């Protein structure tokens, strides 16, 4: 099956569109057509031990970087994972490509748990899951030429390309990512940030992987170059039928590129659904706060936009709050939130009413709330037809301008 597939890939470069169809056929030949879960992540946990003492090290606790994350990735889809720094999204990425070993849980690639693999079997799987890193300045070896960087995966997996063919393959890859194939002997410092990120993408593609894990691939780039790289990732996905796990903190970019989106907070996924479900019909308070905090590039939205300002900082993952981890910053928190861990499932309130709000959300008091105003909504005059103002312990919801004393009524859920 693999040989078939990589044969298809080779032709795709040579004959363009006709071969792309061939590749698609090769893909359809496997049991993993578009839509089937190619990757199933179950209860993934990563704890980093905290130790005390020099000679006799004693574990005194653990940083719970990832604490029970589950999701599926279908063949050909893009799953976006968003969250703030320290939420564990990068640790998840690193476990998917086996750069970190999980403390517990399973990562099933085509039904097989890869966390238990080793040796040759592991090597074969790793070929199919490749990574693109955030920082194009530190993730490329400055003393290797571009050809050596992109060709290095072939040293480890020589079966993908025989020695004589490697140079041509690397030049093909440079062409695919929009770089001049004649640049093969140049060094990373001779390229701009955007071009370096293209080199990193070419390296990720070298082994014909099925899954690409991209950890903040565009956050180090300038706005005008960001768009170029996002478009490149988009077109590579449709050309090669890749599945993407796209990790980023920029919610606008994640919406643009993702089919489904998972929101992480303190080592857990709090809400997951299609891009429309998450952005237009969020039901978890954290998602709502996150979305409302994103500045919208439209000054007309300034006055009308309702913003949820979260107070305080994210608690330490070494000592997360009991029950719901978001409760210390949540304006809906009640006693139950401290006692009972909310499960990531369709909340009871929406179970009987199918609709876009009916998706997995880990909140005891899940409630739909529109926070991303569409353009039409914004055209209503200031202060009319907008949601209520909330001022609750730890959290304020308010419109701008904020210094209107009458606009601070208390609402308790």
């Amino acid at each position: 099956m693999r040989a078939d597939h990589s044969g298809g890939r080779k032709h795709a470069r040579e004959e363009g569109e006709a071969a792309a169809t061939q590749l698609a056929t090769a893909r359809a030949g496997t049991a993993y057509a578009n839509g089937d879960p190619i990757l199933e992540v179950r209860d993934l946990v990563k704890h980093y031990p905290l130790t005390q003492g020099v000679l006799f090290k004693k574990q005194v606790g653990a940083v719970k970087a990832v604490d029970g994350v589950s999701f599926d990735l279908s063949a050909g889809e893009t799953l976006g994972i968003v969250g703030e720094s320290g939420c564990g999204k990068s640790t998840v990425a690193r476990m998917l490509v086996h750069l970190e070993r999980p403390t517990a849980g399973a990562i099933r690639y085509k039904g097989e748990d890869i966390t238990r693999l080793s040796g040759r079997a592991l090597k074969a799987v790793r070929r199919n899951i490749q990574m693109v890193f955030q920082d194009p300045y530190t993730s490329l070896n400055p003393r290797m030429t571009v050809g050596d960087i992109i060709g290095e995966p072939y040293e480890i997996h020589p079966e993908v390309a025989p020695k004589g063919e490697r140079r041509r393959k690397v030049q093909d890859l440079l062409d695919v990512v929009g770089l001049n194939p004649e640049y093969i002997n140049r060094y990373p410092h001779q390229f701009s940030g955007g071009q370096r990120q293209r080199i990193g993408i070419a390296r990720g593609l070298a082994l014909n992987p099925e899954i690409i894990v991209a950890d903040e691939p565009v956050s180090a780039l300038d706005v005008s170059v960001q768009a170029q790289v996002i478009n490149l990732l988009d077109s590579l996905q449709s050309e090669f039928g890749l599945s993407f796990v796209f990790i980023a903190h920029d919610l606008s970019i994640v919406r643009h590129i993702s089919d489904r989106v998972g929101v992480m907070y303190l080592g857990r996924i709090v809400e997951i659904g299609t891009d429309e479900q998450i952005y237009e019909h969020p039901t978890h308070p954290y998602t709502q706060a996150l979305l409302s905090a994103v500045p919208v590039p439209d000054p007309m939205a300034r006055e009308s936009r309702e913003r949820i300002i979260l107070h305080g900082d994210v608690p330490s993952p070494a000592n997360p709050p009991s029950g719901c981890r978001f409760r210390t910053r949540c304006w809906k928190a009640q006693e139950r939130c401290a006692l009972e861990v909310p499960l990531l499932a369709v909340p009871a309130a929406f179970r009987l009413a199918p609709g876009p709000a009916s998706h997995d959300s880990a909140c005891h008091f899940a409630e739909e709330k529109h926070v991303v105003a569409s353009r039409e909504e914004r055209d209503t005059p200031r202060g009319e037809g907008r949601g209520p103002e909330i001022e609750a312990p730890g959290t304020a919801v308010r419109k701008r301008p904020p210094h209107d004393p009458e606009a601070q009524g208390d609402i308790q859920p």
Partner: protein
Amino acid sequence: MLLEVRDLHVEFHTREGVAKAVNGVNYSVAEGETLAVLGESGSGKSVTAQAVMGILDMPPGKISGGEILFKDRDLLKLKPEERRRVRGQEMAMIFQDALSSLNPVMTVGEQLGEMFTVHRGMSRKDARTRSVELMDRVRIPAAKERVGNYPHQFSGGMRQRIMIAMAMALEPSLIIADEPTTALDVTVQAQVMDLLAELQRELNMGLILITHDLGVVADVADKIAVMYAGRIVETSPVHDIYQAPAHPYTKGLLRSIPRLDRKGRELYAIRGLPPNLLHIPPGCAFHPRCPMAQDVCRTDVPPLYRVSDGRRSACHFWKETLDAR
């Protein structure tokens, strides 16, 4: 006018040649006004600010022309000690990376207190009291207990608040904030921008906000100056520019950002790369990347054409850009 930058030129003398970082920048800020300076890396937005602040590394930097009028005095003609007094008391700067801008071996209380002991001649005890007040004002919880902490003991958002407290300490009339929220998470970013806007209103300060984030600009700015290759290519009140940009670069930038409220198809991408400052293209520096470029753009540097009151565009074809929406 609080601050007026006139025809400012800054060059850097490097081994490879002269890099022209700022090539004739004009802008002004009034009391209580927020000017956003928007641009990508290498556009000269930070260098201009450093020249205003008087913290440019010279050499290799050199201010090769222009005036910086602050309260009607040309800062470039002041003696070093006068300049230092202006910099310390009348203008202040907030940097992107609070961790590397604060001294890691001094407590935040000592660093805040230094503002009062050095510039106001206060005793250390009084300075400490004022430091606690300041930390309270930027809403650092339990300020009294935390005044003796070191910068690494605070979170990123808290450190940025301490930077803001330091900048506000002597109640300056101008604040320059260079990417103040770029390193912060969105929810913290919103808190910090809110705080900055509130203090600005209270003290009626002028604020120059340097950023590459079109969203932040739309949220807080009164007017905007877009920079490219060391020049201002468009200036405008904030509302107009988002509705109808008058320069192809601004237009490209606005079209190339993904939107939270819409699921777009392919993003518009400005082709090519920003120019190397050692070899700025002749004529309009943007012409190699511009979809509207004609022969005249390759030879003639466009002046800042007047579009309307308060609006200027450095494009030979600003009318066509405005019309072709």
